[in-house]
């Protein structure tokens, strides 16, 4: 069972000298010709690339408090905190527990307004675990976002104000990509333009042609992730406007919806009731409206209540 016999017989000196030549050359290059390769860490530091994922910063003015970052976090290390700001009023902003964070960068990627950034700061150790729980106030840095180059593309999309729309189909006729289709609103007897976002080239012709100024161009950051979209069921809506209050991206507004008037005793129609209207172009898919709605008038697949 002796398999250890080598093919070549060992010689006395062997080629001990060849590795010694290599190390000798290294001594020459690190002692006489140059310096060692070491970076003397606490005193010298390496330059980190701008993509480096270190400690987070949060731009309070950009952040809309949509909690998408909290939802995508793989380690559940983020949470939303309600706080009152002298400038911004009552707001909701995320905090990060760096002790649990795995620095994956998903919160940065998913943020619909590019409010969270990861800086190159990496020396985060602390002797106290609770010091690693950074609330929104510790994360706040309103200037950082302007200093870095933005990688995310912005896209301008036409946004419809339904109260002004007359359903004239001018925009649909003007669109060079044929991406505007007139769709009837269910139970109202009116039609409105619906824009196919994947085809839209942001040319802005529909905005120019609209005589009622119902369409405006709005700039939105392109999302890297497909987000769930709310589906609105008009007949369940009671007009309580809870969803419009909950929506962080201002994409739900209340409007006097024609066709919802109560028929009074004298045969006249009363005042039209308020109903929610969604602007899905601006929707960030956070699911807050879905959670706020108590009348099951909003459906959202894949979001937990």
């Amino acid at each position, binding site marked *: 069972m002796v398999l*250890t016999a080598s093919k070549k017989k*060992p010689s006395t000196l062997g080629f001990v000298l060849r590795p*010694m030549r290599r*190390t000798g050359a*290294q001594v020459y290059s690190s002692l006489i010709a140059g310096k060692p390769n*070491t970076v003397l860490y606490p005193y010298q530091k390496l330059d980190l690339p701008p993509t480096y994922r270190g400690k987070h910063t949060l731009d309070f003015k950009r952040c809309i408090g949509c909690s998408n970052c909290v939802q995508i976090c793989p380690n559940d290390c983020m949470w939303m905190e309600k706080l009152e700001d002298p400038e911004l009023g009552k707001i909701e902003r995320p905090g990060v527990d760096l002790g649990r964070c795995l620095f994956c960068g998903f919160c940065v990627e998913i943020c619909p307004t590019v409010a969270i950034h990861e800086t190159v700061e990496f020396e985060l150790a602390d002797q106290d675990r609770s010091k690693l729980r950074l609330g929104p106030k510790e994360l706040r840095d309103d200037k950082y976002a302007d200093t870095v180059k933005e990688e995310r593309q912005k896209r301008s999309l036409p946004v419809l104000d339904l109260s002004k729309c007359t359903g004239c189909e001018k925009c649909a006729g003007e669109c060079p990509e044929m991406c505007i289709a007139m769709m009837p609103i269910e139970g109202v007897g009116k039609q409105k333009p619906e824009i196919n976002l994947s085809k839209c080239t942001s040319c802005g012709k529909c905005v120019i042609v609209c005589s009622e100024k119902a369409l405006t161009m709005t700039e939105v950051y392109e999302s890297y992730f497909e987000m769930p979209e709310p589906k609105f069921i008009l007949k369940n809506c009671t007009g309580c406007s809870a969803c419009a209050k909950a929506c962080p991206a201002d994409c739900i507004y209340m409007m006097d919806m024609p066709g919802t008037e109560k028929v009074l005793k004298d045969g006249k129609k009363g005042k039209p009731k308020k109903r929610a209207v969604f602007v899905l172009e601006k929707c960030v898919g956070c699911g807050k409206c879905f959670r706020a709605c108590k009348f099951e008038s909003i459906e959202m697949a894949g979001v937990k209540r």
Partner: protein
Amino acid sequence: MNLFEFCYGIIHWLVDLVNHLWYWLGDHLPRVFGDFFNWAGDLAVSHGNIALFAILAEAVIMFVIALVNVLNFIWIDRKWMGRMFDFYGPYYVGYRIGGWLQNLADGIKLFVKEIITPAKVDKLGFLIAPVILVSSSVLALSTIPFSPRFGVFTSDLDTGVPAGLLIAFAFFAIAPFSILIAGWSSNNKYTLIGGMRSAAQMMSYEIPLLLCVASVFLLSGSFGFLGVVNAQHDIWFVIPLFLGFIVFITCLAAEVEIQPFDLPEAEAELVEGWTTEYGGFRFGLFMMTSYLRGYVGGALATALFLGGWQGPSIIPDEFWFLIKAYLVFLIIEWMRWSNMRIRVDQILNIGWKRLMPLAMLNLLIAAAFKTMGWF
């Protein structure tokens, strides 16, 4: 004036100083006590006793020098290794003297660590093994003079320790015994295998080593350091006995357990070999001793082959000796850090089948030189 005379003078002066007290007491105390103090004073001032104290003082001096040398050695080794590995080595502790204080810092750290004796070890063996290893290495060191004037001498004649080289090698060869004790008494499979490997390796490399030494004895006609070094006044033995020098260095590497031959403490397969169960200052002693043995090896190679303290008299003889010893040590370290570890069967093969015949050949060469009358 050699070191013995220097120590003798100091001890004599000290004894005289104390004896004044003795004699004063002898004069003033009642007769019975006075006789005793006079007798003690006479005894202390006698030649034999002062010589004994002088040798003790010499030993202390040499020991302190050895400890400082060990610090130097570890520092040089780490700096040398660092540059070889493309980093700085010790740097911040003692920044102005090149990180020299790092060794002291490490020593203090090891010193203040808790000394753990595992529950199931053989207590006596476990305790005595480091003692044997350190003391034998220090004793081997004590016989090595730095120059004809500076070393442990037993009289004011410049003869040094009679047959000092033999004694040095005898002490040098005690180490496998203590390693075996350490390995066996630790009650651990890794240490046991490490101790066994160490014993096998050291025994088998002792023989070619001593054969090389024998060839030097043959050429120089002396067993002592002074005789061997003085015989190299015209030509260093490394030139006629180059083969022997190579074999000697190789065997030395195996004896002090450095890299191509550091099987007993192969950290990849045997955790830390025979030192696995030792921690804290005991481990520090082992580590210090390994460097001490490296220094002893370098000094022996210097004395045997490289002409000892002989050199141009720009710098003192003692420094010539140290420089040569450091150089030998550096070459061994260079070999250590650029090579891998060989296997246990291969190490024995190399020892018995390659180095042994070469050492015999070297002895024959030496005998031939002697017969020709060239030395």
